[in-house]
């Protein structure tokens, strides 16, 4: 009987340990959200969002982070669009209808999985090497290109999963109606997989806004709004990084505000993703 009680005790002990672990992790998350929100909110004001920093952002006190907000959006939207142009065709290529079962596709999948794991700073360094070779300065275009490399593997992987979930029977029904592969993809598969595809795009976009390491040397930094693709551009994550190091409390407050705005943006994208996925599922066959 002692053996039995000990086993029951172990069960209770392990359950307690698991709950403690989960509490620690989720508690840290909630603390993080609370701290960033509180600190960020303190420095927040409408002016912060719509004004550019006054010249010399390390020293200046008034002014806002508009440069970073606009910059982040430009970078992320640009990179997401570029990545989309490449990710969708590649994801379609990976489907069994095209290259899906060949060694080529296996290799491509493996490559994309490895690219997914490459730290974004390596993409930044590569991007910088490219910029130097071309003789360009750090600019919006450079940042977009580096960021595209960060977003591409994420998007392809998510799109691939979404496309794979389309039931084979549905595709066979289309083929037996004498549709070509491309027509099947375009009119049937993409439509059925649309929520998943949109989620993939938004997922990549969310990652793109938050990434600092890839745009650090490729996009530069400026207090102004870029006027062309070849001007340097600020971004929220880089702004947080630079402004936090300032000895001036007012500037630090801008950093916290930028972090808060970033967090809110990421949360918004996350919520939007779920809503859109639900909305787009109207015609789906389950």
């Amino acid at each position, binding site marked *: 009987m002692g053996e039995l009680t000990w*086993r*029951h005790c*172990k069960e209770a002990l*392990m*359950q307690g340990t*698991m*709950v403690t*672990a*989960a509490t620690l*992790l*989720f508690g840290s*998350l909630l*603390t*993080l959200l609370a*701290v*960033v929100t509180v600190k960020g909110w303190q420095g927040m004001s409408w002016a912060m969002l719509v004004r550019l920093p006054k010249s010399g952002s390390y020293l200046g006190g008034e002014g806002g982070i508009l440069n970073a907000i606009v910059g982040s959006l430009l970078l992320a939207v640009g990179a997401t669009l570029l990545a989309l142009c*490449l990710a969708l*065709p*590649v994801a*379609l*290529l990976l489907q069994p209808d*095209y*290259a899906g079962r060949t060694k080529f596709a296996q290799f*491509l999948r493996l*490559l*994309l*999985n490895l*690219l997914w*794991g*490459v*730290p974004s*700073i*390596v993409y930044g*360094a*590569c991007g*910088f*090497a*490219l910029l*130097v070779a071309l003789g360009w300065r750090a600019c919006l275009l450079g940042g977009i290109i580096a960021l595209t*490399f960060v977003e*591409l593997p994420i998007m392809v992987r998510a799109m691939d999963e979404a496309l794979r979930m389309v039931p084979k029977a549905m595709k066979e029904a289309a083929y037996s109606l004498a549709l*070509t*592969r*491309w*027509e099947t993809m375009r009119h049937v598969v993409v439509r059925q997989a649309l929520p998943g595809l949109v989620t993939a795009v938004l997922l990549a976009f*969310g990652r793109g806004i*938050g*990434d*600092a*390491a890839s745009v*650090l040397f490729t996009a530069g930094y400026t207090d102004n709004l870029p006027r062309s693709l070849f001007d340097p551009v600020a971004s929220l*994550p880089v702004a*947080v*990084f630079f402004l*936090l190091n300032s000895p001036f409390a007012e500037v630090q407050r801008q950093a*916290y505000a930028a972090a808060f705005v*970033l*967090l809110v943006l*990421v949360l918004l994208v*996350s919520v939007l993703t779920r809503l859109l996925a639900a909305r787009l599922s109207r015609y789906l066959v389950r």
Partner: protein
Amino acid sequence: MASRLWQERLATALLWASGFLVIGLTGALFTALFVRALPILHRQPLSSLLTGEQWQPAKGIFGFAPFLAGSLWVTLTAMALAVPLSLLTAIYLAEYARPQVRLTLKPLVDLMAGIPSVVYGVFGVLVIVPAVGKIATFVKTHLSSVPLLSPSMPPTGYSVLAGGIVLALMVSPTIIAITDEVLRSVPMSLREATLALGATRWETVRFVVLRAARPGIVSAILLGFARAFGETMAVLMVVGNVPSMPQSPFDPAYPLPALIANNYGEMMSIPLYDAALMLAALLLFVTVLVVNLAAQLILRRLGRGWAN
């Protein structure tokens, strides 16, 4: 009819072209990296670069050992914290939590994964660094004789431990998500068979479910390691960035990604500095690649795993 066929051929061609484009771009990018790192590789053999402990770019001395050590210290600390916490949480979510609890907590895990690293960095600077600083001072005053524990420099809180804690928070969602998926793919009938033998739920998990899920869990941990090794911003903000070999978790460190991020500004002004930083990027890339490859291979073999 002809135009439909034409469209089909064009579409197919474009799709294949995009595939080759991706492969080509990847190759080009990393060739660029390698080419720009060559100058320093020509001057010094790789082994001496990797073991050199001095980093004085102005004098042309490039020793990468402190940075490699820094990366390892921080990443291993992070894994030591993250793996037990993540595995326990994942087991709880997959095996024990009631459906409503799971429905609330799973999106939180996704949320954690999506938070940008600078935000984790801000949290680190505001909360973790001061906390670690206090603990470090305590250790320095009362436990100064303990070897691997006591700080070798005046503790500021900017340390390996701070970096490790922040990284552990960042890497946990990855490990939890993959482990959760792997656990849920173990068939229910396996658990029922074990429970019917009179096992407790924990015994079922420990002796049967985890064994069945082992390859997936190992690869989850490897993927977490790779992510932690390559993480830049959050670690950079809390780890101290002092190029010396850390001797305790309370010492500052200078991981490879931080090296690259901090110094790209001076890169072009000192000869060979840019090649050195590109080499650092290359080292980072190769390490992460190898670990990821191992994880991918293990995940591949999952299909031909123990069970039918």
